[in-house]
């Protein structure tokens, strides 16, 4: 090992590991955060209950695989669809009343919802971390040439990249994507030219919550699922959203990778400093660019 000024420089293999693990981590973060970013960009709604949707998705996957014997992959899809559908009444009944309210009201309502969600999951599943049975393909190690890596992380990266491709296409090349971008840029103008922003919002909210649930399912084996997940990782999702810039797909992706890789790297190289680096990094980025990396000033 090389050392510079007492600091151990990571070997090539270690760098590959950090990048690989960081990327897998980033893909989970991206999947969960992207919906939050778009809905916040559209309505400016501070949704602190977004982590709760991800958590419910994760627990739904647990129930599907453990109690009902559904295989892991279909469970992920079912959880995404169910949570996405269930999020619509929340948006219609509760959230829509507070679009014009101040951020304090939105913060309080959604913290309240998050608390209720945490309590509900603790009652049903208990406070201990849960696991899911994975198909054997995903449990071993696979060889990627440079070194062997956990198959599950490779799977997460593949899923994440596929998701980015689909979302990127939907966002940039379809008419719904164009409408969303228009509404994020200027909601009033979009409404004036006949875009039904409320309906658009319900749609993105449902898709975003569904993606969060999907990400929650992926997260079970990636960073463990407990009822406190809804608040514990919320800080992370919110940081990604604000560092990336509200309503920006590209920003969410860049911020996810940045924070994911730096977090894994920081913990790998200096375990005692833990998450200190990423919070410092996020703070600096926000101070320099308050609207985020790709946000509109």
């Amino acid at each position: 090992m090389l050392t510079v000024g007492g600091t151990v420089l990571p070997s090539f293999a270690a760098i590959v590991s950090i990048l690989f693990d960081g990327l897998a981590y980033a893909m989970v973060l991206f999947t969960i955060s992207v919906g939050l970013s778009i809905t916040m960009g559209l309505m400016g709604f501070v949704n602190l209950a977004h982590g709760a949707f991800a958590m419910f998705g994760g627990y739904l996957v647990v129930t599907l695989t453990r109690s009902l014997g559904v295989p892991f992959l279909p469970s992920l899809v079912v959880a995404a669809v169910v949570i996405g559908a269930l999020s619509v009444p929340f948006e219609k009944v509760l959230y829509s009343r507070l679009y014009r309210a101040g951020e304090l009201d939105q913060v309080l309502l959604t913290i309240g919802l998050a608390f209720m969600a945490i309590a509900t999951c603790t009652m049903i599943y208990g406070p201990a971390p849960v696991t899911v049975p994975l198909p054997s393909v995903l449990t071993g190690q696979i060889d990627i040439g440079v070194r062997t890596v956990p198959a599950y992380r490779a799977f997460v990266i593949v899923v994440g990249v596929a998701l980015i491709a689909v979302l990127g296409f939907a966002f940039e090349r379809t008419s719904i994507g164009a409408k969303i971008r228009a509404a994020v840029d200027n909601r009033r103008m979009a409404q004036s030219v006949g875009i039904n922003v409320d309906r658009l919002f319900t749609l993105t909210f449902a898709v975003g919550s569904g993606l969060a649930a999907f990400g929650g399912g992926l997260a079970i084996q990636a960073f463990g699922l407990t009822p406190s997940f809804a608040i514990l990782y919320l800080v992370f999702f919110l940081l990604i959203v604000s560092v990336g810039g509200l309503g920006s797909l590209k920003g969410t992706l860049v911020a996810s990778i940045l924070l994911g890789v730096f977090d894994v790297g920081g913990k790998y190289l200096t375990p005692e400093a833990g998450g200190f680096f990423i919070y410092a990094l996020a703070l600096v980025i926000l101070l320099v660019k308050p609207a985020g990396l790709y946000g509109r000033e």
Partner: protein
Amino acid sequence: MAVSEAPLAANDSLRARAREFLERRHRLHPGEIVPWLLIAAVLFVFPDRTTFGTQVLIAIMFALSLDLILGYAGIVTLGHAAFFGIGAYTVAILSARLGWGEPISMLLAAALLAGLAGLVSGWFLLRYSGLTLLMLTLATAVLLQEFGNYRSDITGGYDGVPGMTIWPILGWFENDLYGRNYYVFTAIVLLVVFYIVRRIIHSPFGQALIGIRENVRRMHAIGSPVHRRLVTAYTIAAAIAGVAGALFAESTAYTTLGVFDFDNSAKVMVMLILGGTGRLYGAFVGATIYMILEDEFSKAVPEYWQFGIGLVLVLAVLFARRGLLGLFEDAAASLRRSRS
């Protein structure tokens, strides 16, 4: 304010009227003695619950500090626990690492350090608003927590600081078994802090804060130094939260990095919302009720307690935006109407 500085007779009369208005608002209302009588009564009615009572008083002080910035200046922060934590760790490090355990000077040191942190962070952060400000305040608290964890050789990490020795108050009053001395001490500190906050609220500066909360553009337009006002309020609130944190560490002789938790920031906000923001006594009502309910319910089935708090928050936002005191005022008003 620029207008009042113009040497015009009309402005002098305007100024006199404003002065009279503020003095009338500032005059003590007879009902204001009630909370203090209740606080004193606890010593005689529940003499064995003063340890818990001390924690309630500390929570009131913490909520009061938040009221100054959230209720009056309208700054929404998700990281107020940062200053409580700085106060607590000032005491912990002074008493366990530096061998100084004198309670009153430690409170002053905590106020100074937390206030300094409020000044520096406020100066940077209060240019922003909305989501960015929420994130920045949240990140500041987490950053401090992570830093504490990084230097766990000093802070003791999540296990807490071992070996805190707090000297008797004024060299005489030990922290006895029931914590009565600390109850009285905390009540006196709360009275002093409350007096300061009350004076600030009813001063021209306090009115400027309310102006910023209600319409920041207009305050800019009439030439009010908005940023400086906000930073000043933030610094004072931080110092008070620091004193609350210091009292927490002194009364329990114990502190862990958990004081910086997001939960702690959220909890103080819930207390304030429950009581009612921007009305001074909201902190008293909200913190007391929250602490008593938590003490009753959280031990038996913590999930139900958490669910209940969540439900109360949702209902409060939808139906009782001005808190319990607001509900009380509404009820009193409708009673008066029905009578006449």
